[in-house]
C-alpha cells in the first residue's frame, strides 16, 4: 500500500497536509473522496494544496496521496468540439455522472478512451524522428489532425501501423518505445517549438474596427479591457465565430454560465466563414464559470493554452480567447491570500505580473520542429473594477500585449457598438502589417485608414469648439468634417454583432465601404466649395443608402451601385460648377 499523508488544515479551497514530501505542482488526491488538488507551496513539513473541487465536510486527519505527476492536459484526437471545466474534465461526462449540478469527487478523462480513430501513417519504418515529427494523420471532423512524436522522444521508427485505434493504443514503436496518439503535457509549461517568426499576417476577424483600424496579426496579443457591459464577451465571441483560424480555444474563466450555454447553442448552427463547416467543430470550449471552484479557474487558462499549443505544433493557426483574465488574476489573489502571502498592489500576489507575461509569452507565430508554421493569437478580456484602467491587472497586461482595444462606457451608453474607442485604442503591429494590406487588399489601404483616423481626430477637436459655441457657428467646411466623421463612426465603425449581414464584414468589403465614405467626402468638399448647403448634402438619399447598405442581403451589389450613382447624385445638387 502506498504511503500517504494526512490533512492538517482546511480553509476554503486551500488544504494543508503533513506527512508527504511531493514536488511543487504535483497533483495530490485529497481526502477519502480523493479530490484533485495541486501543490502550490511547500513550507517545512507542511504541503499546501489548492483543491479543484468543493471542500465542504473535508476534515483534518483524512488522507492525502501524492500522484507524483503535475497537472497535465491530455492531447490528441477528440479535443475539438469538447466542452471542459478548468482541469479538462468534459462537462457532458460530469453531467452523466452527477446530474445537472456539479458535485465533487468525479474524475473524468479529457479524451475519450473508447473511441477509435482511423490512423493513416505518413512516416514509415526506418524514418528518423524526434519530438514534434509528424508520423501520421487522423480526420477530426474536417481537420487533418496530425499525430506527432511527443516532445522528448527521438529515434528510429521500428514499426508503424495503419488502422483504427483508440488514443491509448500503440500506433508506432520508436527505438522500442510505444507511441500512441494521446500525449500528456504539464499545463503550466509551454510546449517546445523551433523559433518565433515575425507576426506579419493579419488575423481577419470580419470586424471593421479591428481589421481596418487596430489589426491583430496571427500570433499577436491583444487585451480588451472594459467596464461591465461594454462588450468584451460579445467581441470575443465575434472573434471566435469569424476569425480566419483553423482552431479556436475559448476559455470562459470565472464568467457567466448562460454565456457558455449561448456558445454551445449557437456555434453548432453557425458556419466557419472559411470552410463552411459547423463552427463548433473547430472550437474547444473551457467553461469554468464564476461559481465553479476558483482553483480550477486558476488552472483553466493553462489548460486552454496547452491545447492551443498542441494544434499550433501541428502547423495550424489558433486563436485563443480568455474571458476574463481578471477573474483568473482574482483566483490567484484569493488563493494567495489564503496562503497568507505578502500581498502586492490591491491584494494581488507579487507574482501577478510574472504570471501574466508568462501566459502571453506563449502566444506567437512560430516555426515548429517539424518544419510547419503555426500560430497562437491571444485575446484577453480584462475586467477592471469600476472601469478604472489604472488597476494592477490592466496595467500589467498593457505592458505586455501589443494591441489595446479600449472599450468605452460612454459609447456603450449611446449604443455605439462595438464600443471600442477609436482615439484611445492602438495596435503596435499596424506598420508591420501594412505591407500585407497593400499587397492583398489595396495599395492605398494604409492611406485610407490614415485618412479616416485624421477625420476622427479632427472631429474630436471640433467637438470642443461645438461645446462652447454650438455647431451652427462653425464654417460649412468644418460642419462637413463633422458630418463625415459621423458617417465613419455610424456607418463604418458601428457594427451590429446581432445582425445577420452586418455581423461579419469581409476585408474587401471593409475597404469598399471606407473608400465610398472617402468618395462621399471628396464630393461633398467640392459641393460645399461651390456653395451647396451642408444640410442638403446630408439629406441626400445616397447618403442614406450608404448608411443602410450594411444591412442588405445584396450589400456588395448595393455598394457597387452606390459607387456608380455617387457622382451623378452630387451633380444633381447643383451648386456652381
Amino acid at each position, binding site marked *: 500500500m502506498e504511503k500517504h499523508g494526512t490533512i492538517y488544515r482546511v480553509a*476554503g479551497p486551500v488544504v494543508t497536509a503533513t506527512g508527504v514530501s511531493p514536488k511543487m505542482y504535483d497533483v495530490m488526491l485529497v481526502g477519502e473522496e480523493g479530490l484533485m488538488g495541486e501543490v502550490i507551496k511547500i513550507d517545512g513539513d507542511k504541503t499546501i494544496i489548492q483543491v479543484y473541487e468543493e471542500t465542504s465536510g473535508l*476534515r483534518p486527519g483524512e488522507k492525502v496521496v501524492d500522484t507524483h505527476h503535475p497537472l497535465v492536459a491530455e492531447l490528441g484526437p477528440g479535443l475539438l468540439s469538447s*466542452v471542459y471545466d478548468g482541469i479538462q474534465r468534459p*462537462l457532458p461526462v460530469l453531467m452523466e455522472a452527477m446530474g*445537472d449540478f456539479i458535485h465533487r469527487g468525479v474524475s473524468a478523462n479529457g479524451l475519450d478512451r473508447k473511441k477509435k480513430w482511423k490512423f493513416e501513417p505518413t512516416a514509415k519504418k526506418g524514418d528518423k524522428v524526434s519530438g514534434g515529427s509528424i508520423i501520421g494523420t487522423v480526420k477530426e471532423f474536417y481537420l487533418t489532425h496530425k499525430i506527432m512524436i511527443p516532445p522528448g522522444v527521438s529515434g528510429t521508427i521500428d514499426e508503424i501501423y495503419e488502422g483504427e485505434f483508440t488514443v491509448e493504443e500503440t500506433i508506432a514503436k520508436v527505438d522500442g518505445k510505444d507511441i500512441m496518439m494521446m500525449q500528456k503535457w504539464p499545463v503550466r509549461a509551454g510546449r517546445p517549438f523551433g523559433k518565433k517568426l515575425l507576426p506579419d499576417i493579419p488575423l481577419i476577424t470580419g470586424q471593421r474596427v479591428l481589421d481596418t483600424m487596430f489589426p491583430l496579426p496571427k500570433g499577436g496579443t491583444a487585451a480588451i479591457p472594459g467596464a461591465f457591459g461594454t462588450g468584451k464577451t460579445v467581441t470575443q465571441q465575434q472573434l471566435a465565430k469569424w476569425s480566419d483560424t483553423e482552431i479556436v480555444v475559448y476559455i470562459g474563466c470565472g464568467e457567466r*454560465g448562460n454565456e*457558455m450555454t449561448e456558445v454551445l447553442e449557437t456555434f453548432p448552427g453557425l458556419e466557419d466563414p472559411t470552410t463552411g463547416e459547423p463552427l463548433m467543430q473547430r472550437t474547444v470550449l473551457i467553461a469554468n464559470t464564476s*461559481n465553479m471552484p476558483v482553483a480550477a479557474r486558476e488552472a483553466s487558462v493553462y489548460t486552454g493554452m496547452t491545447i492551443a499549443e498542441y494544434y499550433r505544433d501541428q502547423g495550424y493557426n489558433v486563436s485563443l480567447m480568455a474571458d476574463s483574465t481578471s477573474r483568473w488574476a482574482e483566483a490567484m489573489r484569493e488563493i494567495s491570500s489564503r496562503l497568507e502571502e505578502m500581498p502586492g498592489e490591491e491584494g494581488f500576489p507579487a507574482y501577478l505580473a510574472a504570471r501574466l507575461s508568462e501566459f502571453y509569452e506563449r502566444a506567437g507565430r512560430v516555426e515548429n520542429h517539424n518544419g510547419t508554421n503555426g500560430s497562437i493569437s491571444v485575446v484577453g478580456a480584462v475586467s477592471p473594477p469600476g472601469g*478604472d484602467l489604472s488597476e494592477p491587472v490592466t496595467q500589467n497586461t498593457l505592458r505586455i500585449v501589443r494591441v489595446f482595444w479600449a472599450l468605452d462606457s460612454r459609447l456603450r451608453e*449611446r449604443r455605439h457598438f462595438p464600443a471600442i474607442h477609436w482615439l484611445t485604442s492602438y495596435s503596435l503591429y499596424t506598420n508591420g502589417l501594412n505591407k500585407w494590406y497593400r499587397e492583398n487588399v489595396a495599395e492605398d489601404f494604409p492611406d485610407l485608414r490614415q485618412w479616416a483616423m485624421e477625420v476622427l481626430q479632427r472631429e474630436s477637436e471640433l467637438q470642443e469648439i461645438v461645446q462652447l459655441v454650438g455647431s451652427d457657428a462653425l464654417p460649412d467646411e468644418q460642419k462637413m468634417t463633422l458630418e463625415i466623421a459621423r458617417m465613419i463612426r455610424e456607418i463604418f465603425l458601428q457594427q451590429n454583432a446581432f445582425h445577420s449581414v452586418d455581423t461579419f464584414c469581409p476585408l474587401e468589403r471593409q475597404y469598399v465601404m471606407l473608400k465610398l465614405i472617402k468618395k462621399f467626402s471628396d464630393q461633398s468638399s467640392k459641393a460645399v466649395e461651390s456653395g451647396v448647403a451642408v444640410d442638403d448634402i446630408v439629406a441626400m438619399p445616397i447618403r442614406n443608402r450608404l448608411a443602410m447598405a450594411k444591412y442588405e442581403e445584396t450589400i456588395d451589389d448595393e455598394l457597387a451601385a452606390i459607387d456608380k450613382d455617387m457622382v451623378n447624385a452630387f451633380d444633381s445638387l447643383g451648386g456652381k460648377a
Partner: protein
Amino acid sequence: MSIASKEYRTITQIAGPLVFVEKTEPIGYNELATVTMPDGTQKRGQVLDTSDDVVVIQVFEGTTGIEKAAGVKFLGETMKMPVSRDMLGRILSGAGEPIDGGPAITPEKRLDISGAAINPWARAEPMEFIQTGISTIDGMNTLVRGQKLPIFSSSGLPHNDIALQIARQSKVRTGEEFAVVFAAMGITAEEAQYFMSDFERTGALKRAVVFMNLADDPAIERILTPKLALTTAEYLAFELDMHVLVILTDVTNYCEALRQIGAAREEVPGRRGYPGYMYTDLASMYERAGRIKGKKGSITQIPILTMPGDDITHPIPDLTGYITEGQIVTSRELHRAGIYPPINVSASLSRLMNAGIGPELTREDHKAISDQLYAAYAEGKDLRGLVAIVGKDALSERDQHFLEFADAFEDKFVRQGTDEDRDIETTLDIAWELVAGLPINQLSRIDRKYIETYHPEYRKSE
C-alpha cells in the same frame, strides 16, 4: 459514537462574529456548529477554517453574549434547509424559522444551502419574454425567464415600488404565473411592511415564500438569507416545475455583512475594504438563476441594491454588474423631475434581450425601434447640455428635433403609473409615435421595411 454529540468547552478567542475553539476531534470544513450559552440559549454557526490546532466558527446570530465558558457542538453536516411545497404563503425569518405564527414546516426534503453550480452543459438558454408592463424594461431592457437582472438604485428612490410592480405584473405570453421568493436582507421594518401589505393586498402572498432579515436582526444572519431563499427557489423550480421570481433586497446590506466577517478574520481587504473574494461570493448567489434543459421550471432573479453615494463604480454595484445579465439603473434626476419609474435607460442594459425579442416572441420591429430610441435619446440628452450653454437657437433644425424628442420620451415612454400595466404592443406603439417626431431620414437604426409597416406616417396613409 459520533462526534456530533460531543460538547467542547475550549473556546480560546471570540472576535467579531468568530469563535475559536481548540482541542477538538477532526471537524469538517463548512460544517454546522451550535454554541450553547450557560443560560441554555443556543446560537448556530459554520466552520470557516479547521485544523488539528484550532477550529474557527462564524456565528450567524452574532457573538453577543457568548463567553469562553460556552459549550460548542459540531453537527457533522453542512447547513441544510428543510423544503416543502407548503412553504408557499409562509413568512420565515432570515435564518429560515417561521415567524408568521403558523406551524413548523414539515420538510419533504432537506437540501444543502450552499447550492452546487449548475453544470453549464445542463443549462438551457433563457429566452421567454417576460412582460413586466413597464415600457422602459419591456421595450428597451427586456427581461427573460431565467435571467438575473438587478435594480441599481439609490437611497430615497422608489426601487421598492418598481420591484413590486414587476412582481405584480410579470407574466409570460402563455399566461403562466410566477411563484415569488422574497428575501429581505437588513431592510427596515417599515420597508418590510410595505412589501408585505402589497403582497397581501394583491393576493401574491399565496404564491410567495418570504424571508425576513430586518435591519435590527443580526447582520451575520444576512449571509444565510439569500442562500436559504435560493435553495427554496431551486426546489420550487427544479423539483416542483414552477417558474420562480426571486427578489433579493438589499444586496448592499448583504455585502456589508461580508465585509464585517472579513474584517473580523483580519483578511487582507480588496477594494474599499470589501473581501477579495466578494466577486466569487456574489457570483455563487446570482448564478443560481437560470433554466435547466429538460426541466419545466426556472429561476429569474431581481436583486435590488442601493449604490453607496450613488456611485455605480462602488464595488457592490460594480461586481454585481460584472455577474448579472444587465442592470436596471434608476436616476435621481428623473425622480426629482417627478417621473415614475425613474429608470435611466442609457445606463441600463439587458444582455439577454436579443434572445427574447423579435418575430413570434414580441414583434419584428422591437430591436430596431429600441436601438433607435437609445440613439435618439442619447443625442437629445447631449444637446440639453449644449443648450444650457449656447441657447436653443444655436441648434440646427435637426438638433432641435432631437432635443424635443428627449423630453417627449421621458414624459410619454418612461413615465407611467404604478398600476399601469402596458402590454408590449402598447409600449412599441408609443415608441413609434415618439420617433415620428424625428425626420424620417434620421431614423438610421431602423430597416426601411419596418418604417413602412409601423411608422405612423405610413399607417395613416393605409
